[in-house]
């Protein structure tokens, strides 16, 4: 893989001004097109010459994909809204603080200024074998280098492996699942709305994609319902460095309590599976229980029950267990 890593090889760049124009371009170029949002996921692929699109479609000029607006008692967020805006917008900070905190913990200030919410949600995995251009399953090959006997797999998954053991790196994705958000995906045939937890897919469904989106699809809106506005939120991202790094394990939860009893709960974790995971069983276990440390411990135990660690990532189990415990206990 002796490659030149200084500049992006030749390709065409289109800057459509409307969703319709963008969809036409994606339709025209098919699998040779590349959707560019903030570019923080894209440019590494291009510079490494691992992904070689013929046409880059830059969404930066499409005003209808930007901004945050009220929608009934919820919000609609344009996927091209920067993470900085998501992290600081008064409506999000005030009513959906979970999402604001998740966006605020992405990478660095400069990356948040440029990176978009849609890009953060739809980003590809960071498995270094895959990102390094190794011909693994996800890249169309027939081996997983990260689960080979001597592989370095401390960051890889403990749940949901299916040939590929990479994890979803998004910080905002588990917040979306905890908030019961919906993703609006548009293509030439029209619009489809997915619940956040169905939007992200694992390698068992399609080993080359992280989300339901296929070439020609665009994420055109993110809807946050009012259901969980102002609930008790807990977001915690554990990583090696407190800046830049992707998470090792992240937990996001939204809980409603009444008189010390948990009435309703949504808990999601990321960094442990190829998709952000909703912890249905742990949720069911805590609903109706006291919002106490004991409930948290029980939820944590349930959460890690079916984990299958690889050689170097068993540390994720106690980490995840404690994060789930704190997510439940923090609301006391």
């Amino acid at each position, binding site marked *: 893989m002796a490659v030149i890593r200084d500049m992006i090889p030749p*390709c065409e760049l289109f800057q459509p001004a409307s969703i319709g124009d963008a969809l036409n371009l994606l339709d025209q170029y098919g699998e040779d097109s590349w959707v560019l949002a903030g*570019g923080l996921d894209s440019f590494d692929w291009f510079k490494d010459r691992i992904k070689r699109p013929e046409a880059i479609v830059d969404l930066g000029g499409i005003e209808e994909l930007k901004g945050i607006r009220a929608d009934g008692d919820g919000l609609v967020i344009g996927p091209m809204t920067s993470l900085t805006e998501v992290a600081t917008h008064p409506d999000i900070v005030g009513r959906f603080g979970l999402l604001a905190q998740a966006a605020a913990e992405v990478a660095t200030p400069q990356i948040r200024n440029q990176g978009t919410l849609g890009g953060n949600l739809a980003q590809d995995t960071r498995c270094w074998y895959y990102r390094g251009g190794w011909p693994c399953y996800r890249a169309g090959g027939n081996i997983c280098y990260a689960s080979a006997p001597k592989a370095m797999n401390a960051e890889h998954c403990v749940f949901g492996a299916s040939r590929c053991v990479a994890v979803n790196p998004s910080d905002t994705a588990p917040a979306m699942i905890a908030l019961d958000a919906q993703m609006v995906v548009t293509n030439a045939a029209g619009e489809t709305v997915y619940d956040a937890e169905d939007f992200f897919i694992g390698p068992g469904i399609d080993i080359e994609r992280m989300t339901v989106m296929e070439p020609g699809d665009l994420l055109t809106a993110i809807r946050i319902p009012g259901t969980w506005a102002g609930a008790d939120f807990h977001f915690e991202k554990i990583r090696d460095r407190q800046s830049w790094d992707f998470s090792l394990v992240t937990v996001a939860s939204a809980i409603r309590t009444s008189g010390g009893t948990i009435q309703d709960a949504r808990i999601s974790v990321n960094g442990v599976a190829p998709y952000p995971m909703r912890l249905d069983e742990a949720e069911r276990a805590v609903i109706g229980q006291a919002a106490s440390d004991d409930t948290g411990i029980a939820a944590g135990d349930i959460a890690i029950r079916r984990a299958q660690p690889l050689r170097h990532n068993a540390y994720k189990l106690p980490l995840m267990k404690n994060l789930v415990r704190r997510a439940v206990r923090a609301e006391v």
Partner: protein
Amino acid sequence: MTEVEIIRDRGPRNYSRRKFIKGVIAAGATVSASSYLFRGPGVLTAGQARGGVERLMTLSVNGQQRRVDVLPYETLAMTLRYKLGLTGTKLGCDRAECGACTVHIDGVSHYACSMLTHQVRGRAIRTIEGLESPDGELHPVQQAVMDEGGFQCAFCAPGFIMSMAEFTENNPGATREQCAQALSGNLCRCGDYNKILNSAERAVEYMSQRA
């Protein structure tokens, strides 16, 4: 890569003669791009077929309107350094992982290595060269760094100073901790963070005196 390979890679769609020729040109361009220069004739013709962006553009850099010929796939750091001669913007990692290339776009810090120049058309770009006032008076952040001897080798300094400038201009009275948070997108391999934060604190002080 030969022309034959290119065509096979691109799948089953119909190939016009024009597309075939374009493939040949692109193959040539890949080879000449390895020379690190943009100016080879192969590079100049590639990427121009079928619409796309207009290459000749006017960039607003440090208050000046600069005409420049920009490739569709060129990063802002490349344009600033190698087309406009503004070499104060450093390229460290070229991967949004070090912060040395930090510049302001409409007053907000971005990594110039990780955005295309075409993405900033019509927006105000400010680089380290544009920080001092027209009469040559240093920006309070630059003065603070001078007074505190803020950096050791200082390769990362332009990026740090740009981040510091944006933050102190918008956050009067910021604490040392807030400065550290604001500078968390810049790396210093000399590990001179203590003096960099001293500089930031002094910059906050100078900024309040100026206001």
